[in-house]
């Protein structure tokens, strides 16, 4: 049995809107191994959340549609699952933790009610057993007085508490993969660290894989084994975390890393930025999406879509200037642009 849990190949998810077809995800490929954590980074609108929604096939009906690619989860072809199989796939195989814990729980039902509902939906247990399992799970994620919290409504708990409840709910069914979609964005910094530590702890215990979507590069460094950089719906770079931070290859990744605030800041408090804005997703797919913001742009970049190439073992990059024979060096003068 292979140790690969999730394989996504050339995934394409489009939104069919009145104003045109928005290519939210247009060629995303990656692999996630059992027990590993992968980070997905990219700016807002780069397709991070749509990719994760596509994996559990939870897209807005009518507008959102997976139009191409393959998703393979533990030997299952996810795109071929029927309605009934999908119900078990969501929740039992994959648990999702959303950005805002306060809105992820149904406000008009008690915590206990929602946890028991989730457990009973995926496991063949009676309500009493499910209740006890829920209490145990709350205890495990560090919620004091779990019996009392079971009777609480979500609004009676803090954001960090709610996120713990959601994590507890996720671990009740022992999923093989947890998709954490910016799990700490809505939380205080101190609570963020606690929640991440909790995720790590549970991963070690259950050998769960984690897909961590974030735009916090620091979190990626702390948590992830591999990392994928998304830009305008494309995978632009994909490597192990160590490799990506020490030898980033894509000009966009360079820009992202440069934008991180540093303690020894030479720029006197000014942050580096990538000039320009991401392209309109209705117009992408004909050339390199990053060409208008890239200092190393060539004619080829404006004419052709760069393929995702494995330039070094395990290190993939989609850039015309980065290939096996000819490598672009960071900071190199762009001759074509000069002329």
């Amino acid at each position: 049995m292979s140790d690969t849990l999730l394989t996504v190949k050339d995934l394409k998810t489009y939104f069919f809107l009145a104003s045109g077809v928005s290519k939210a995800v247009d060629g995303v490929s990656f692999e996630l191994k059992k027990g590993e954590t992968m980070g997905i980074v990219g700016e807002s609108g780069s397709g991070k959340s749509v990719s994760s929604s596509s994996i559990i096939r939870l897209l807005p009906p009518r507008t959102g549609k997976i139009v191409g690619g393959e998703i393979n989860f533990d030997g299952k072809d996810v795109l071929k699952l029927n309605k009934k199989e999908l119900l078990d796939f969501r929740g039992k195989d994959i648990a999702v933790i959303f950005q805002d814990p306060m809105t992820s729980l149904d406000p008009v039902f008690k915590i206990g009610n929602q946890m028991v509902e989730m457990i009973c939906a995926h496991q063949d247990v009676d309500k009493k057993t499910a209740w006890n399992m829920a209490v145990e799970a709350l205890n495990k994620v560090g919620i004091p007085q779990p019996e009392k919290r079971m009777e609480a409504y979500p609004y009676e708990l803090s954001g960090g508490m709610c996120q713990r409840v959601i994590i507890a709910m996720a671990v009740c069914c022992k999923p093989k993969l947890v998709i954490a979609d910016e799990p700490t964005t809505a939380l205080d910094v101190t609570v963020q660290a606690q929640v991440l530590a909790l995720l790590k702890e549970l991963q070690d215990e259950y050998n769960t894989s984690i897909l961590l979507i974030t735009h916090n590069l620091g979190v990626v460094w702390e948590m992830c084994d591999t990392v994928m950089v998304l830009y305008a719906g494309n995978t632009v770079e994909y490597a192990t975390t160590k490799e990506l931070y020490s030898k980033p290859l894509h000009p966009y990744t360079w820009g992202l890393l440069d934008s991180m605030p540093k303690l020894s800041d030479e720029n006197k408090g000014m942050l580096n930025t990538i000039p320009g804005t991401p392209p309109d997703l209705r117009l992408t797919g004909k050339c390199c999406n990053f060409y208008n913001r890239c200092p190393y742009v060539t004619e080829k970049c404006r004419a052709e879509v760069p393929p995702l190439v494995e330039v070094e073992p395990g290190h993939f990059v989609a850039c015309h200037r980065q290939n096996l024979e000819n490598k672009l060096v960071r900071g190199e003068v762009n001759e074509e642009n000069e002329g």
Partner: protein
Amino acid sequence: MLKTILKRILQSIPTLLIVVTVTFVLTRMIPGNPARSVLGPQASPDAIAELEEEMGLNKSKAEQYVDYMFNVLKGDFGKSYVYNKPVTTLIAERIPNTLVITLTSLVIALIIGLAIGVFSALHQYSILDYVFMILALVGVSMPIFWLGMMLVMTFSVNLGWLPALGMGDLSNGLGDFISHMILPCFCLATIPTATFARITRSSMLEVINNDSIKSLRARGIKESVVIWKHALKNALPPIVTVLGLQLAQAFTGAILTESIFSWPGMGTMIVSAIDNRDYQLIQGTVLFIAVVFVVVNLLVDVVYMLINPRVSYESGKGGK
């Protein structure tokens, strides 16, 4: 929660006092003489004066007001001179007739309206959604008296399928009773059905795109449970508000519908009371209706607290 309810009951006392006062003033402003309408146009002036004295109409308006208030506080709502019966007896006689059609039509409206609303929300922008919403728009805009007359013309006069007037008698069998109810109930249910459908649709649409609903789906909860348990409960508050108003109206009787179909309910009684200048009966029924509205509104508030725990939390905090 008890504290909130008690507070609301105390708050409703001034409302009721104002209702009593305004009705008193308004009834006195209707032109015409009650004693004359009781005795008929041929009555002698002496007889009229005698009856006026008996009814207390020869006293000054202020004295009449004080007397009336005093009686109401004692629980005495006066007596209708036209029917020669106490007002409370008359209301008690008419209320069951009214409730039979109003509650039946309300239940029908609620079931059909909710079903259409949920369906339309789930199939937003589908052809059926458009059809339902156009029908609902026609439904809320339909003038009831016109609809009633058209129904009578079609089903009673032209087709002869259903009786046009009056209330059936249970002694003639259940069939007779129900056949008399069909047209009035259809007429009464039209507007509430359309209102429920529209309000359910918009409320569900708001809820259905919530993160909490998306999370439930991501947790692998069955779609039917997501919609009918979670989404509907979240969408209930505006529906309950409308239901409360409709329920209160159910007690007041449907003045138009009852008049068209000669249904012996509260509605027809109010109309004839105004026609006859039956001061006590007008005042009594209006006060009764006001009490019903106050009670139903209180009930709506209690239901709010039950479906949305945050409501009682916040109002409880404010009450401290």
